[in-house]
C-alpha cells in the first residue's frame, strides 16, 4: 500500500531567530505537516555546502536553511555569507540532476511563529509537487 508521498525535509535552523520562531509556533500550537526534521545550528553561516549535498545524496526530498533576516544576525554578518553560499549551492544541486527548488533559504525572525508555520507548510507542498528525490534509490552511503 503506497500512501501519499510523505516528504522527508531536513531543516537547519539558526539558534537565535528561526529556532525561536519554531518554538513560538509550537507554543502557539500552530499545526504543521510532519515533514520537517529540525537540526539546530548556531548560525545559518554554519551550514556548509557539504552537509547540504550529503543530505540530498542520502535522499532528502528537500533541504531548508533558515536564519535571521539580513541585518539581524546575532553574529552580525553570518547570514550574508549563508546567502552567498546558498546561491552557489543552488547551481551545484542542479548538476546532481536535482531541481534546485528542493533547496530553500528562508529568513524567519524570532517573533514570526506564523511565518515559520507558513514556510514549512508551503515548502512541504512544493516538495510534494516535485516528488520524491530521484537519488533515493540510486545511492547508498
Amino acid at each position, binding site marked *: 500500500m503506497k500512501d501519499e508521498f510523505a516528504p522527508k525535509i*531536513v531543516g*537547519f535552523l539558526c539558534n537565535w531567530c528561526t529556532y525561536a520562531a519554531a*518554538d513560538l509556533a509550537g*507554543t502557539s500550537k500552530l499545526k504543521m505537516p*510532519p515533514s520537517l526534521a529540525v537540526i539546530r545550528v548556531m548560525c545559518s*553561516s554554519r551550514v*556548509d555546502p557539504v552537509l547540504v549535498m550529503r543530505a540530498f545524496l542520502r535522499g532528502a526530498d528537500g533541504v531548508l536553511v533558515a536564519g535571521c533576516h539580513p541585518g539581524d544576525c546575532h553574529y552580525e554578518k*553570518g547570514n550574508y*555569507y549563508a546567502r552567498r553560499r546558498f546561491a552557489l549551492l543552488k547551481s551545484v544541486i542542479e548538476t546532481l540532476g536535482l531541481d534546485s527548488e528542493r533547496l530553500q533559504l528562508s529568513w524567519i525572525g524570532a517573533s514570526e511563529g506564523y511565518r515559520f508555520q507558513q514556510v514549512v507548510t508551503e515548502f512541504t507542498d512544493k516538495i510534494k509537487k516535485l516528488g520524491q528525490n530521484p537519488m533515493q534509490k540510486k545511492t547508498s552511503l
Partner: protein
Amino acid sequence: MEEKIGVYVCECGPNIADNVDIDRVMKTISSLPDVDVVERHKLLCSENGKKFLKESIQKHGLTRIVVAACSPKQHEVTFMKVCEEAGINPYFFQLTNIREQCAWIITDKELATERAIRYIRAALRRIPFHKALVKKEIETNPDVLVIGGGIAGMEASLLLASGDRKIHLVEKTDVLGGKVKELDKLLPRMESSLDIISQRIQEVKQSEDIKLYTNSEVEEVLGFLGNFVVKVKTGENKELELRVGAIVVATGFSMLNLKQLPRYGYGQYDNVYTALEFERMNIDGKILRKDGKPPKSIGIIHCVGREERGYCSGVCCMYCLKFANYIKSKLPDANVTEFYQDLSIPGKARQKFYEDTKAKGVNFIRSNEVEVMDKVIKYKTEEGEEKTSSVDMVILAPAIEPSGDTAKLAEMLRISQGDGGFFQEEHPKLAPVSTSMEGIFIAGCSQGPKNIPESIVQAQAVAGRILSSLIPGKKLEPEIKTSEISEALCIGCQTCLEVCTYGAIYFDEMKRVSVVNEVLCRGCGNCVGSCPSGAASVKHSTTTQLHQEVVEALR
C-alpha cells in the same frame, strides 16, 4: 571505558503525553542495542524531576544522557547542571525537542510519535560523538589604554583608574582637553567651559594611576582581549611597549574643511568664520570684524556640509543658538539671523532654550539653499523665491567628521569604519560603545557626531563595560563551544580569516595553517561554512554530529 547511555522521556504533564504515545516511544527506544536505560517522568524540569534524573544517572553509572522534552532554549542549561551534579561532563548530554517542535505542532498522534522517536534516535546517533568540553580560563591584564585626551578620554580614564588598574592615556597633541577646551561657554546654562575642563585636566594629571603621554601616538596593536601589546611613540621619540587588557578609542572629531564648499565664502570674503573660530573670538573677549569694529548684522548658517556628508551632525543647531546668545549678550543691538534646514533640538530642555533665544529677537529663516557672497547671504525660500540678507559677519556650522587618523587607527586596531567613516559599534542599539574586536571600545565623537553630555555618557559606559568584564585578579571565561581548525586538513587558503566577523582566526606563518583564537571566537561557525577542506569545525556542533542527525532524519 564502556559507554552507558540513558534516555529520559518527559511527559510534560499532558503536554507531550497527550499527543505522543509515550508507551510506544519507550518500547521502541528500549529495543535499541546501544541504549542501557530508558525512563519516563511526568515533569523532569521540576525539583522532583531533576532529583530523579540525578539519582538515576548515578544509580546506573550512566556516561551519556539524552533527554526528550521541551525546547533546549528552555531547559538545556537546567539539565546540563543536573548532569554536572551527577558527575558527568555536561556536554555528554543532548536535549531533544519533542514538545514545541513535535507534540504541539503535529495533529496526528501516530505521526507525532514517529517524529518523537526519530528525534530521540537522532540524539542517540550523535551523542557518541560528543566530546567532553571544559571551561577555559585566561589570565588578563586589567590595565587600559585610552587613545585621546579629550573630554571622553579623560572621563573614561578617571572612572577606570584605581590602585589595581593603571590607565595609559595617549594624547596626540601637547595638551589635554580636545575640542571642549576651545569652547567659551557650555549649554544650556552657559557655564564656562574652561572651569569644567580644567578641573578634569587637573584630576587626570594628579592621578597616580593615570600615566599621561602627550605628543604621543599609537604605532602598533597586537594581541587580543585581556592581552594587548601596544607600541607607542612618545614625544621624546621613545618607543614604549605597553601591556593592557582593553583599549578605548576616544579620538574625537574634525570639522569639515570649508574650503571644500566655496559657496559658503570661507577664505574668500572677510568676516566669514567657522564655529570654532567664533568660539575663540568669544574666549578672547570681544566680537569684532576684521577691521576692528563690532558687527551690526550677523548671519549664522547651519547644516554646512550636511548634504555632502549625508548626515546631520546633531549638535550645531544648539550651538548656533548659543552663538546668538553670545552675540546678544555682548552686542544687544546686533541683528542676528539663523539660516537652517531643520531645527534639531530634541530632548526636554532644548526647546525652551530655543524659545528663550528667539524671544531675544533672533530671526530664523528656513532654507535649503544658502550661499555666502561679499557682505550678503543669498538664499532660496521653500517656495523657490530667491532672497538676500545683508550681513557684515557670517558664522558657519560645518559638519562634524571623523578625526583625520580614523582610517589608520581602524586598520591598526582591526575595527571597522561605519556610516560617515566613524568607528563602527558592535551593535547600533544594544552595544554602542564596543566593537566587534572584543576588548576595544569607542566613545564620544569617534563613534559618531554627538554633544558633550552624550560623549561623557559613552565614556562612562565604556568604563562600565570594562569594569564589569576585566576585573583585576579575575580570569576571563570565554565561549566554550568555539571553532577549531585541524592542522592536518587546513590547506592555508585563509578564507576563514576573511569571513570571521570577530577577527578570531590568525594565520600561523610557520606552519602555514589557520588557527582559532579561542578567546575571541564566538562559535558561529561561519569559518566552517566557508572552509573548502573541511578542516574547520565547531565544538559541539561538528559536521559528524550534525550529519548523524541528518542520517536519522532520512533513514
